[in-house]
């Protein structure tokens, strides 16, 4: 019997697990994929929104502004990059100015600490590459950027250090109500638990339907496609740039990432297949066309990658953070679309309050809030590098040549508290393969390291789990040592 089962290892599940790990509770997180941060957490804009966008009074508004304030300490504790680079919402005419004024008013109501409307000259002074056709912009200096998958992974490593258990590749198939507890049945086993927290993202409605097939809550998946530009484009914009929002959402944005790339996207397409993470020609054309409004100088020749992510939008419109009356002690944190990443720390605290309202929980005195992590090789000074290489020569051997990732960092990712078992898992933890050659040089080195550390043949190495094998077989007449 465990106290709490958390379903889903995305940013919400991770921060919930971490917050609960500060109390004396036995925790089990179940993630159906081979790694954590596999859904919307893996593929989004990575923006920590200021909070002028959600409608006042909604849960989105409340958790957005609260979440934003929590980001500094959260990222500092978990050794994750976070920068308050500010955001501009551009208006090109007087009508759009009215929308800005509305947003500003919303922002003030929502409690956004600083928010201004600027005129063209003031904007162009700071963002020289933007179109001269801009008339006004809403400027929110508290908007920021982070690394969502690193935040998820580090939060869970912290939770594991504090005693939480994480089971990967384990999918919840059935939940049975027993006398005062629940039985959770997965593809691998059965667990008894007092509480369940549903953080299943795009599949959060499916968890609800396991309890009550007729419950009126549906995820309406919405796909967003993006371009990633080479680090050579660094500085093209210094803040996040939006156009005025429409009913479909915040529209296309142009933003720096914490790693020095530039992101352009996303589209917003309602889709039926919630696993459909494909990019499309029409999506690419749409991004280019809409982004042209911001600037006709966007260096699309520096595109190094494209990707798409699925937002877990729902029929409920606001975040659905509720217990269904017939199924007490199960909290659903569902329908978390934008600003989900920003709201996540605040939603995690709500989960703690929810349990506190049910029973007295005592703090786990041995729990740590901070994670010990050495900075990536790429961000170290030469003195720091020299010192580390003297301790372990593998720090000096660079495996990923584009992002300067050392052999030691790859091994650390494989042997960490949430072990990386696939190429993609290593990429998320270390950035190896995320640079301009997209793994053309380093993937076989990483495969060899994985094979050695996991003690499995190279032919068993996958890109992202399941059937995504990198190699088919050995050569016909293989040279043997």
């Amino acid at each position: 019997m465990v106290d709490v089962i958390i379903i889903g290892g995305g940013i919400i599940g991770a921060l919930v697990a971490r917050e609960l790990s500060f109390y004396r509770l036995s925790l089990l997180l179940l993630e159906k994929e081979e790694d954590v941060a596999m859904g919307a957490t893996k593929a989004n804009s990575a923006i920590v929104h200021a909070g002028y966008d959600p409608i006042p009074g909604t849960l989105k508004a409340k958790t957005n502004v609260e979440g934003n304030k929590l980001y500094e300490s959260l990222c500092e504790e978990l050794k994750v990059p976070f920068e308050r680079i500010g955001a501009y919402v551009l208006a090109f005419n007087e009508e759009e100015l009215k929308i800005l004024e509305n947003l500003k008013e919303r922002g003030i109501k929502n409690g956004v600490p600083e928010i201004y409307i600027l005129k063209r000259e003031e904007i162009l002074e700071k963002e020289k590459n933007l179109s001269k056709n801009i008339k006004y912009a809403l400027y929110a200096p508290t908007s920021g950027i982070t690394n969502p998958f690193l935040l998820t992974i580090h939060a869970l490593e912290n939770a594991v250090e504090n005693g939480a258990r994480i089971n990967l590749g384990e999918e919840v198939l059935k939940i049975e109500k027993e006398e005062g507890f629940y039985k959770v049945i997965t593809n691998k086993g059965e667990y008894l638990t007092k509480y369940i927290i549903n953080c299943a993202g795009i599949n959060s409605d499916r968890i609800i339907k396991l309890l009550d097939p007729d419950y009126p809550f549906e995820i309406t998946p919405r796909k967003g496609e993006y371009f990633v530009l080479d680090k050579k484009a660094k500085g093209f914009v210094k803040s996040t740039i939006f156009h005025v929002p429409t009913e479909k959402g915040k529209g296309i944005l142009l933003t720096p990432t914490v790693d020095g790339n530039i992101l352009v996207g996303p589209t917003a397409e309602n889709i039926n297949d919630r696993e459909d993470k494909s990019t499309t020609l029409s999506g690419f054309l749409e991004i280019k066309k809409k982004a042209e409004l911001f600037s006709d100088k966007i260096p699309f020749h520096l595109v190094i990658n494209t990707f798409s992510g699925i937002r877990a939008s729902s029929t409920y419109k606001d975040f659905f953070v509720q217990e269904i009356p017939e199924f007490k002690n199960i909290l659903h944190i569902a329908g978390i679309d934008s600003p989900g990443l920003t709201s996540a720390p605040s939603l995690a605290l709500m989960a703690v309050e929810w349990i506190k309202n049910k029973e007295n929980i005592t703090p786990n005195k041995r729990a740590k809030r901070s994670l010990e992590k050495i900075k990536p090789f790429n961000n170290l000074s030469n003195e720091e590098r020299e010192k580390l290489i003297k301790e372990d020569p593998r720090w000096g051997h660079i495996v990923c040549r584009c992002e300067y990732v050392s052999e030691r960092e790859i091994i650390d990712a494989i042997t960490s508290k949430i072990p990386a078992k696939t190429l993609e898992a290593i990429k998320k933890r270390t950035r190896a393969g995320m640079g301009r050659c997209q793994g053309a040089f380093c993937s076989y080195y990483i495969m060899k390291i994985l094979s050695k550390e996991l003690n499995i043949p190279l032919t068993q190495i996958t890109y992202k789990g399941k059937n995504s094998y990198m190699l088919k077989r050995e050569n016909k007449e293989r040279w043997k040592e």
Partner: protein
Amino acid sequence: MKKEVDIVIIGGGPAGLSAGISAGKKGKKVLIIERNEELGGILNQCIHPGFGLLYFKEELTGPEYAQRWIKELEKLNNVEYLLETMVLEVKENQEIIATNREGIWEIKGKAIIFSTGCRERTRGNLQIPGERPAGIYTAGTAQRLVNIEGYLPGEKVLILGSGDIGLIMARRLLWEGAEVIGVVEKLPYPGGLTRNLVQCLEDYNIPLYLKHTVIEIKGKERVEGVYIAPVDEQGNPILEEKKFIECDTLLLSVGLIPENDLLETINIPIDPKTGGPYVDQNLLTLKDGFFVCGNSLLVNDLVDYVSIQGLLAGESAVKYIDNILPIDKRIPVEIENLRLVVPQYISFPITTEKITFYLRIREPQKNVKLILKDQDKKIKEWRYLIVKPAEMIVVNVDSEFLKRIEKPIFSLEG
């Protein structure tokens, strides 16, 4: 760790090797920095023959060709090399920061030669839509897996792009028992050398689909197939005519990008036409003391040219250190009806007996003249029965003809 040498060479592939040899033979203290575990660069995975016909007048495999130069290099006690060593930073004062298992190196040189080669264009560069399964490889990565690691990346393969590595890999994968469905090329003419088209595709009945491209990749976990479509005159895919091709692997052989990222950090200007830095006939970049050769200068189609450029860069770097490479003036070399030229500048006085020019054209043409003019005055003329984009035009011009030139123009005329 600190080290001081005369010349630092970044990259120990064919260009770096020959640069090291030519500088070493002149008695200079040379250090080659190589990031791989052995010298020879990409040649080590090119186990097919066809190397050295021009330089050694015999046909060698890649590793054999590399070994010839490595042996030569090993004879020179004043040429050292560091393996599995990565350059992290190049400074304007010819200082280099590098790392390996021994620690961080601070290396001071009097001249630096970049021989950093190329990387392959990726799916991301091409912006091919679709899902993101395993089984999408650049041709060079696949070549490494098969020829060095001994593994077959796929059993049913479609190749996008008719570059030389793709053609070579079509045959190599077929020999290993894979089914090679075909080679898809967006342009109306192939990208690789004629001999590779014949020996790798025609001899094995592997179809080449010209004016086609891959428009979508399918497969959630491993590649399950791709959609290909013909392209119109502007190169846009005709989506209505798309066709599904079942395969487990997509190989990309869609071009090489000279790797000059380090050199760009010290603001050495890059020629957008070649992807390499602007150089003069001494292969000196527009920054004093920094030379470049091989595929990071321009994508060559024969390794022999790479070696020749390396020899020249080595000699030039020695002259530079010995203060016998004075530059009084530098004039640009212009081109008409051509895609690129290297060198892009002529520096005066000219200290070599001849200057080798490398040129590429845009589209295949027959019965053409290449003319070197000074303004309007014809200086030299070469005739060709056929010219192809895949095959570089290489011409040597005696310095005698260039000494007083004021406005050099290469022009391709029908």
